[in-house]
């Protein structure tokens, strides 16, 4: 607050000394000024009036508000989903807030599975031993549906790379992702007032609670019951 006042004061002092010539355009005729000012106002008015003519197709797709996950889902549900015959990738027919963004099947070549999963805390790794599988591993990644700033990020988030080689299952983070968006906000003061829904997009659109991990992510591995697992340094929950 105080620093803001100081900043304003400094600006004003600079202006005082400089006399701010930019604002004091010298004219040879006042009529020119009046006409140009009027023309500018008309242009502004037209720009507002004709704004609805801009097709919305170019804009970022607005999020369809789907149910949000309030707490971590029950792992059992995830395992059941991961084990299903044909994983419904990208389907939203999952229980509230869960979205599967990858599903893979690997063929095992040995009796021991080595895990190489970075412990960066970005995702939970769940392993379930199932008797329905023989010589195969099913790997599925899940995220909680995530929307912010009116954008549905759920499907945009790249799943981690999962690969199996020489009986070593490696999980690598996906390629770094960068999203840039532009948002047109309304008055800088709108949010101050009651019912100021049209105020700052920051609060209104909810991207003040952006999390860097884009919500909750999980990797589910379904492995044969008799498989030996060498966890290595990885932190996994084996069910």
């Amino acid at each position, binding site marked *: 607050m105080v620093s803001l006042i100081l900043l304003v004061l400094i600006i004003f002092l600079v202006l005082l000394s400089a006399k701010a010539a930019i604002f004091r355009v*010298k*004219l040879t*005729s*006042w009529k020119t000024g009046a006409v140009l000012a009027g023309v500018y106002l008309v242009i502004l008015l037209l720009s507002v009036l004709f704004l609805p003519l801009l097709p919305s197709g170019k804009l970022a797709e607005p999020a369809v508000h789907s149910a949000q996950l309030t707490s971590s889902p029950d792992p059992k549900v995830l395992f059941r989903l991961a084990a299903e015959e044909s994983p419904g990738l990208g389907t939203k027919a999952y229980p509230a807030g869960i979205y599967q963004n990858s599903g893979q099947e690997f063929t095992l070549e040995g009796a021991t599975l080595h895990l190489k999963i970075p412990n960066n805390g970005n995702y939970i790794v769940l392993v379930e031993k199932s008797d329905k599988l023989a010589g195969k591993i099913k790997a599925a990644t899940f995220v909680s549906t995530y929307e912010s700033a009116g954008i549905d990020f759920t499907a945009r988030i790249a799943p981690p790379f999962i690969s199996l080689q020489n009986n070593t299952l490696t999980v690598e983070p996906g390629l770094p992702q960068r999203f840039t968006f532009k948002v047109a906000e309304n008055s800088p003061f709108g949010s101050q007032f009651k019912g100021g829904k049209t105020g700052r997009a920051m609060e209104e659109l909810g991207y003040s609670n952006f999390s860097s991990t884009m919500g909750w992510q999980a990797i589910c591995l379904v492995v044969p019951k008799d498989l030996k697992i060498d966890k290595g340094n990885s932190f996994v929950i084996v069910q």
Partner: protein
Amino acid sequence: MIVVEAKKLGKNYGRVKGGVQAIRGLSFIMEENKIIGLIGRNGAGKTTLLKMIAGYLRPTGGMLRVFEREPFNDLTVSAKTLFVDDSMTFPLSFTLADILREAARFFPGFDAKLAEALAEYFSLNLKKSHHHLSKGTKSTFNAIIGIASHCPLTLFDEPTSGMDSSVRKDFYRALLKDYIQHPRTIILSSHLLSEVEELLEDILLIHAGAECLHLPVADLKEYAIGLRGPARNVGELAQGREILHREEFGQGNIYLVVKKNFSPERLEEARTRGVETVPIATDDLCNYLTGSKGGIDDVFRRN
């Protein structure tokens, strides 16, 4: 009718003590529909006085009435008064034509036709902007506004500074002709009386903020007389009179300027004794009245 009335008028600049006293104890009356000359040297307080009359400055002592009101910050006085001076400025975005139009809005008596005709005569380009004018042209334009506005009280502060002499003459002639058609009170300040003398009805001569002389201009030529001749005889004649100027020349000869109230017989008698009488030019009289007593010669005498 009295337009301007001052009683013991004073004006200090700056702090009350140690400030500059620009006007001290001026008392005078200016009547309606006269052209009055405000004469004085540079720094005599002419501009200060005019600015007080125009309502720009507030007197610090005494009383001042313009149109029977205190002029300072008075809208009614302002509406009837126009102060024309060198530094009269107008907005940059206005052409001369714009300014004339504005003046016409403010002053009901404004004669737009006259203003345009005068501007044309003085070959002013009305499409030009005011601040692009040269000093002399600016003075001319301001003077045109002063004439054409027909303000009941028009104050000209050294209006001809920067004008060349032919424009000066034309301006004074225009002012006079317009004054005859539209009589009003005009105060004309100048440091040079001879330039405006013929135009004036009254003259107010001030020096160092105080009044020296206030009388009809016609009386000025007879106000004082110069006596030249042998020091003894001249001295005898001038005894007991106020000596306005004194100059010694030749051997035992002297030149005195004194107030003229001699009987013709006295002068005739003095003439026989070798005392010559010399009329005093009005400019010289002003100089004598406002100058330091010894004149420039004193400076050299000391060395």
